[in-house]
């Protein structure tokens, strides 16, 4: 069964085209990385899948239904830079927020089962014992793991992550990719990343996006794909990692 189906997606911000005729199918159990240059439409695609941006034409389906209808099957992990680390909230409270899956709920309180689940998830992502810590006391890697734990509170069948290792040191990045690899045994994972090392060593599928989809297949980067993706000549220093994008004047 397809966990995610995107067909003929066209999105513009005013007169600026953000996505052009993007079609993509992701099977259940996949571990897909979406890569591309800045402004290439990666985050827009992720937001469209989440139902956060309207699209002109096309369709998005999560397990055969609209994202809104199957909202409870989606786990979302934003970039840590977009979340306020000074907000007055503890680690445990953040995870519990993931259990809120309804609209307005008067006099809502978390059940014992929610709390138990939150403790289990914190243990699973390696944050056991940090339940009462403030966010400002966490490292970047710990904060990212916390946001993953929050996303897991609804037991999602597909996990969407926006640059999960941006601004995170290599050791923590490796831990996060190991965690995602472990989660992928049960959950479909789709992530947006610039991390070429992760693409070469962790993910099972790669999609390259530059307004339209230029590649979708096994995670092997060759010069042809990368040139198409970045729209300029490139030099691959080693197979897959790392690569160098040449500007036109460098070529000349």
């Amino acid at each position, binding site marked *: 069964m397809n966990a995610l189906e995107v067909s003929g997606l066209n999105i513009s911000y005013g007169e600026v085209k953000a996505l052009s005729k993007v079609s993509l199918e992701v099977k259940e159990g996949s571990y897909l990385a979406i890569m591309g240059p800045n402004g290439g439409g990666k985050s827009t695609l992720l937001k469209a899948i989440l139902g*956060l941006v309207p699209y002109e034409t096309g369709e998005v389906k999560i397990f055969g239904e609209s994202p809104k209808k199957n909202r409870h099957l989606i786990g*979302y992990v934003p970039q840590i830079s977009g979340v306020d680390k000074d*907000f007055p*909230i503890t680690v445990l*409270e*953040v995870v519990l*927020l993931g259990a809120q*899956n309804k609209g*307005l709920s008067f006099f809502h309180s978390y059940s014992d089962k929610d709390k138990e689940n939150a403790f289990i998830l914190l243990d699973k992502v390696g944050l056991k014992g940090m339940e009462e810590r403030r966010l400002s006391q966490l490292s970047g890697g710990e904060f990212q793991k916390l946001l993953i734990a929050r996303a897991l509170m609804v037991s999602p069948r597909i996990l969407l992550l926006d640059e999960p290792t941006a601004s995170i040191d290599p050791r923590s990045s490796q831990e996060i990719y190991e965690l995602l690899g472990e989660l992928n045994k049960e959950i479909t994972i789709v992530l947006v990343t610039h991390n070429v090392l992760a693409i070469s060593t962790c993910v099972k599928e790669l999609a390259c996006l530059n307004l339209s989809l230029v590649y979708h297949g096994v995670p092997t980067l060759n010069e042809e794909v990368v040139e198409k993706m970045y729209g300029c000549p490139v030099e691959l220093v080693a197979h897959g990692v790392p690569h160098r994008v040449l500007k036109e004047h460098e070529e000349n």
Partner: protein
Amino acid sequence: MLNDFLSYAFLQNALIASVFTSIVAGIIGVIVVEKKMVMMAGGIAHASYGGVGLGYLLGFTPIIGAFIFALISAFGVGALKRKGGTDKDIIIGLFWSLGMSLGIIFIALMPGYPPNLSSYLFGNILAVTSEDLWLLGILTMLVIFLVFSLFNNWKAYLFDEEFASIKGGATVFLEYLLLFLIGITVVVLIRGVGIILCLSMLIAPAAAARLLFHKLGTRIIGAVALGLIFTLSGLVISYLGNMPSGGVIVVMSVLSYLFLYLATSRIFKERRNEG
């Protein structure tokens, strides 16, 4: 002095109004500060001056006019921000000056001598009437109910609006509800400290609580308690010194925040050095 507070109705009214003011300013102040909407609140407060002027011109209670103008400007800013295409700061600035300008024009259009508007601009908690207290009491209860009954929704919305929206957290509704609550808060604070000074009454207790409390619930309770201390001490000092109550309350609030800021900075520095 205690005898005065027990004997005079206007002092008792002022005391009760101080309690309402502190509760509303503490609750909404923390939300406004955490959501980084301080300038938005300032714009809404100043825009309400247009309603005060219209109230005087057409002969209805100016505070009702202030409430209507506060709501129009709050929802106007919210709708234009959501529509996109222009910067939030620009919209706030325009509503801010438009409301003040309309107030000036409406007052100028009044026949005869213009009224004394200083109690609306700078507040006069000692002039609060029993009718005012009923209005302040109802509005305060409404704020308490809408914030605490939806506390977990507010927490999700304030912490990560995008995530809350994906989870179906009715974020658009909460945004407009917050603007409505800011409108209510402005009306409550106008009686105490006035349009021009209400921004500091909204910010100072919340900012001071930010230095001391690290959970949203305790921060709100802390801001209410600190607001009470600032307002009551300001009220007593203004009464004893025969000074304008609004100004004294704001000076007390800001000075107390600065004192707490310096004290907590020093404590953190000493702890770091010990560590």
